[in-house]
């Protein structure tokens, strides 16, 4: 349908409705005639009447943004009729949760590396020169093997998640509890291999507080602020907790020192070492004390031989 006496084509909205598209057509700027699908989606979800009702309440400068969001919402609904924009929101929240978990894990690793670096610097500065060989061996023992990082990541992730005080499962605030199954269905549709948590999409995230400053001036943020707001988490405290809960490096260093001494010492020491490690509950206390004295003596002797 074309305008009378004009060459411009009717907009997609007027074409669809088979009516005359005048110069005053409110929808013409937003529904070009070469993209009929856009209008069809918007019409299918909202209807022309409802779109016009929304537009008439807005200021002129807000109409373009409103139409853009209406079209976006309609397109999302066309793409996913069952979930629409809510499916998109759930997907993004899951992505954010995943990224935050990963970020926390990497920060923890980085902190551990920094602490090791600092300790190594202290050791190398404090130890005398003839002990440098031992120090280098210890360094090798302290350095985490690269293949251990994924294990550490999993452990740290589990520990960090369990220790986060701000994490809580929130529910959609508008409606009754019988809607949660629907939301859970949306969650499990998007989550793939996350078996550690029950419902991460509605969890509160400790890293989200930095973004709350962006939410202050827009009423549209009221909704996501209810979803995204979380309690601040002391990241440093969390990192320290994780380090304390992970004896990985301390155990390695100690075990390496023990194994090295066993290798360089006599066979008697190794026998004694086995004895001290015995789990015989009837072990004599005197024998243990003697073993301790002998161990201290053997370390000194081994060191003197260097």
């Amino acid at each position, binding site marked *: 349908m074309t305008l009378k006496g004009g060459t411009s084509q009717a907009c997609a909205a007027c074409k669809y409705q088979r009516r005359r598209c005048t110069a005053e057509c409110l929808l013409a700027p937003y529904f070009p005639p070469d993209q009929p*699908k*856009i209008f069809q989606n918007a019409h*299918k*979800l*909202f*209807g022309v009447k*409802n779109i016009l009702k*929304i537009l008439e309440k*807005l200021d002129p*400068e*807000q109409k*373009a*943004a*409103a139409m*853009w*969001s209406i079209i*976006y*919402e309609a*397109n999302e*609904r066309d*793409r996913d*009729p*069952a*979930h*629409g*924009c*809510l499916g*998109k*929101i759930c*997907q*993004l929240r899951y*992505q*954010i949760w995943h*990224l935050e978990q*990963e*970020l926390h894990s*990497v*920060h923890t*690793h*980085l902190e551990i*590396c*920094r602490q090791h670096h600092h300790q190594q610097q202290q050791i190398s500065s404090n130890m005398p020169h003839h002990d440098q060989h031992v120090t280098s061996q210890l360094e090798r023992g302290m350095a985490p093997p*690269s293949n251990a990082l994924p294990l550490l990541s999993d452990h740290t992730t589990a520990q960090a998640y369990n220790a986060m005080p701000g994490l809580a499962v929130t529910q959609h605030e*508008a*409606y*009754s509890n019988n*809607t949660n199954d*629907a939301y859970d269905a*949306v969650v499990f549709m998007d989550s793939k291999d996350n078996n550690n948590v029950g419902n991460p999409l509605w969890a509160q995230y400790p*890293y*989200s507080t930095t*973004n709350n400053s962006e*939410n202050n001036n*827009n009423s*549209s*943020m*009221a*909704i*996501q602020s209810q979803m*995204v707001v979380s309690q601040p988490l002391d990241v440093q405290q969390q990192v320290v907790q994780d380090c304390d809960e992970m004896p990985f490096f301390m155990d390695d260093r100690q075990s390496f020192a023990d194994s090295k001494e066993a290798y360089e010492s006599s066979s008697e020491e190794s026998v004694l070492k086995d004895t001290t490690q015995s789990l015989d509950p009837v072990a004599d206390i005197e024998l243990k004390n003697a073993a301790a004295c002998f161990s201290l003596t053997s370390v000194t002797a081994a060191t003197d031989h260097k």
Partner: protein
Amino acid sequence: MASSSYSNSPCAACKFLRRKCMPDCIFAPYFPPEEPQKFANVHKIFGASNVSKLLNEVLPHQREDAVNSLAYEAEARMKDPVYGCVGAISVLQRQVIRLQKELDATNADLMRYACNHEMPPSQSERRNNNNMGGSSHHFGQNSGGLYFACPWSTDHDPCGDQRGGGGNM
């Protein structure tokens, strides 16, 4: 007013529309009479006819999800007539981009430690460098994103950055 065979009172939709609630009413399972505002919002934004058509198009086991998502979007649009729930999407997408950048930078620091055992630049230095500019090319895993950019005005861009022209249409 007659009630459905499964309840003594008509559903919220039929109450609102002042009509007889039949046993096969498509709204009845999802709009209980105890939640009148739910249907009122949905009806105001989308209209009962559109909702009914949409429910008939989806599979029966998806209808509850569909109703809940429509109710959510309707409430969001009531609270924010300009952006509705799309404002939330743009905020979340920006958050994803920010987190991805931070993760990339932190991983780079970790790699430097692993390779060189050197102290990487401090966190504040890195954030200052990132704020100066930088691309959003890391944000690529999110399927689709806001695939339809606002073509009429560059002043109103709730998504922060426009990607591409028209959409998947």
